[in-house]
């Protein structure tokens, strides 16, 4: 097998180990946080008058009832991402990549109580949690050489990525219609990437790669908020936040084994000596990669039409930062009480990609998939407690370039569905 064959094979393989696509860093609304807030599609900046307000707009908890409040939310979420026509079979058929993700976790817990002139809150949020898996086995994959196709191709992916926020909030009213508040979250991100693949060629050569990476980020996420009620039934909310990474530990390990040919070849920025045709190549390194996150600002408007009806909307701006483009997302929500014991909520939201549209002729472009979502929930109230059952659905279409240094563009789809069950108390 000559050098160009090897290059082709490496192109086929390398897309599995780029650093930038290990987790879904391309979107900001990977999981809608909160109880009532989730039902409203996350349009909560101008409402925020319960424990979820600590996350959306801490100024809102100043409007919480005098009683203490607590809320907890449990979410079961599944997601499927499909990259279409990534591989071509010998018979001309196309093959898709399918990655699935699911997680069951406590998504939010918060308490708010009156302290002095204001309200003190304490909350825990998981704004992003994925456990992505891909387990696919392909046969008879075409290569540029008709006499030596890939006979077997096995790929396993097992990625997990979670972001945690925990911290206090305080809000106080400056007047009957104006409140300010702040939250200081401690930020922790725990990522683990495990990927392996094996190619077996018809003429006997094989290629094996295992990639392992862990990344831990520690930092802070301050949130400042303000709510102004120009009228009794209208509220305008504004909040700004930014995640600041203070400490990072990244560890990567690559293991290659191949029986293809000799010579130095560039793989993912590294040179490897394949002169020994039956060798194992190992590389392990620790890094300190502090990622910069953009600041975000949300402007919300809520109209409390009556005690039974609420309309609310948010516009959220995420700034640009190095490899992330600026994004504007929208959310709209409504709440209706059928009776004092039963409320229905519905929300629409966007989750646009923070990447440029993919253009023809370029290589190594980040995937660009815009997601649109619908949330709905029912809440049962009884005396001092309530429970909420809700479902969230998101769907997006876009494009991706899965193969390194290739101008080929693949269509991509994301489909998310999650169910949540939450409880809230007054005490």
């Amino acid at each position, binding site marked *: 097998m000559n050098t160009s064959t090897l290059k082709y094979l490496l192109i086929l393989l390398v897309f599995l180990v780029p650093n930038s696509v290990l987790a879904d860093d391309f979107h900001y609304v990977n999981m809608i946080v909160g109880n009532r807030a989730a039902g409203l599609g996350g349009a909560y900046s101008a*409402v925020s*008058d319960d424990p979820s307000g600590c996350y959306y707009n801490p100024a809102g908890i100043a*409007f919480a*009832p005098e*009683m*203490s409040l*607590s*809320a*907890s939310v*449990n979410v079961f979420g599944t997601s499927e991402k499909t990259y279409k026509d990534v591989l071509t079979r010998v018979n001309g058929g196309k093959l898709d990549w399918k990655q699935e993700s699911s997680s069951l976790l406590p998504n939010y817990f918060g308490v708010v109580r009156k302290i002095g002139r204001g309200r003190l809150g304490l909350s825990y949020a998981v704004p992003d949690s994925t456990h992505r898996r891909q387990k696919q086995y392909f046969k008879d994959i075409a290569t540029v050489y008709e006499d030596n196709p890939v006979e077997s191709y096995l790929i396993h992916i097992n990625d997990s990525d979670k972001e945690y926020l925990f911290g206090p909030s305080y809000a106080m009213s400056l007047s009957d219609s104006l409140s300010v508040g702040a939250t200081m979250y401690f930020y922790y991100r725990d990522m683990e990437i495990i990927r392996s693949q094996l190619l077996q060629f018809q003429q006997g050569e094989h290629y094996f790669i295992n990639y392992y990476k862990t990344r831990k980020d520690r930092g802070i996420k301050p949130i400042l908020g303000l709510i102004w*009620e120009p*009228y*009794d*039934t209208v*509220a305008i909310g504004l909040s700004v936040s930014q995640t600041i990474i203070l400490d990072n530990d990244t560890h990567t390990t690559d293991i290659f084994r191949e029986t293809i040919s000799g010579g130095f070849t560039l793989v993912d920025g590294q040179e490897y000596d394949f002169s020994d045709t039956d060798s194992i190549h190992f590389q392990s390194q620790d890094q300190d990669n502090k990622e910069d996150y953009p600041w975000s600002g949300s402007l919300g408007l809520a*109209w*409390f*039409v*009556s*005690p*039974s*009806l*609420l309309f609310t909307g948010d516009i959220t701006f995420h700034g640009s930062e190095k490899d992330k483009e600026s994004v504007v997302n929208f959310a709209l929500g409504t*709440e209706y*009480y059928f*009776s*004092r*014991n039963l*409320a229905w909520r519905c929300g629409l939201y966007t989750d646009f990609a923070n990447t440029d549209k993919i253009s023809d002729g370029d290589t190594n472009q980040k995937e660009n998939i815009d997601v649109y979502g619908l949330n709905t929930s029912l809440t*049962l*109230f*009884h*005396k*001092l*407690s*309530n*429970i909420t059952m809700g479902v969230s659905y998101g769907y997006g279409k876009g494009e991706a370039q899965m193969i390194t240094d290739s101008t080929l563009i693949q269509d991509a789809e994301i489909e998310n569905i999650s169910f949540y*069950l*939450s*409880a*809230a*108390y*007054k*005490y």
Partner: protein
Amino acid sequence: MRTRINVVLFILIFALLTVSFVFAGEGRRRLSALDENYDDQSDLEAEISFGRDLAARILGNYTLLDNVGVNHYVNLVGNAVALYSGRPELKFHFAVLDAGECNAFAAPGGYVFITRGALDLMENEAQLAGVLSHEIAHITEKHIVKELNIRGADDSITAGLANLIGGSTDTMRKTLEQALETAADILFNRGYKIKDELEADQIGILMSAVAGYSPDGLKNFLSKVKHFEPEDATYKNKEHPMHMVRLETIDQTIKINGLTQNLNATMKGRFNEHINP
């Protein structure tokens, strides 16, 4: 077609604005949070149980007056006005505390205490009835119950599921313990809210007047004790002290309700017979 859509949109927005105007004042309050005073049997039981615990705490700070006659007399007067409290589901208990200070306490569920020092300053039964009525009004209006949100156990399926999801039991237990501390702090240190004090004055006057006592009893007693007591810690406006506000409110209440004729009894003789034999 577009015109029709515009008309529908206009009507919809107009209707929503009208509804919004009608409900102006409710603001953020949601339907589930309105009328939070609705009670059931478990709430009543919780009120009485909480009041009993609070009464025990009061008796932990004071000694009961060892005089059966005086205690019996105060119970008779107290229950006479409590008949008009509007809370027939409560059984009222009155007791005299052996303390020289001038004070009175009310614990939810019907427990009322008055000090020997307060009785010493009184001149007639109408004043005693006025003070006891004021304390009874704190109970009937549930001032502590509302402020601390004392509620009964929620045995509904909703609450059960909520407990299961969020594990609230321990939180609720600790919260009730905290509430007891807060209630004791209200009684012994920081006092009731001003609006609650004024409401208790207004209702107390009417209660004692309906029971046949002179409506001036509470006013006369307050006028006398203002020289002996420090100002209410919750009301620090020196230009307009708490006593003055209360006396003005009492005057207005008497006037508005047509009680200025003051034809009712003071029962001075019976009072002296039992309290100052």
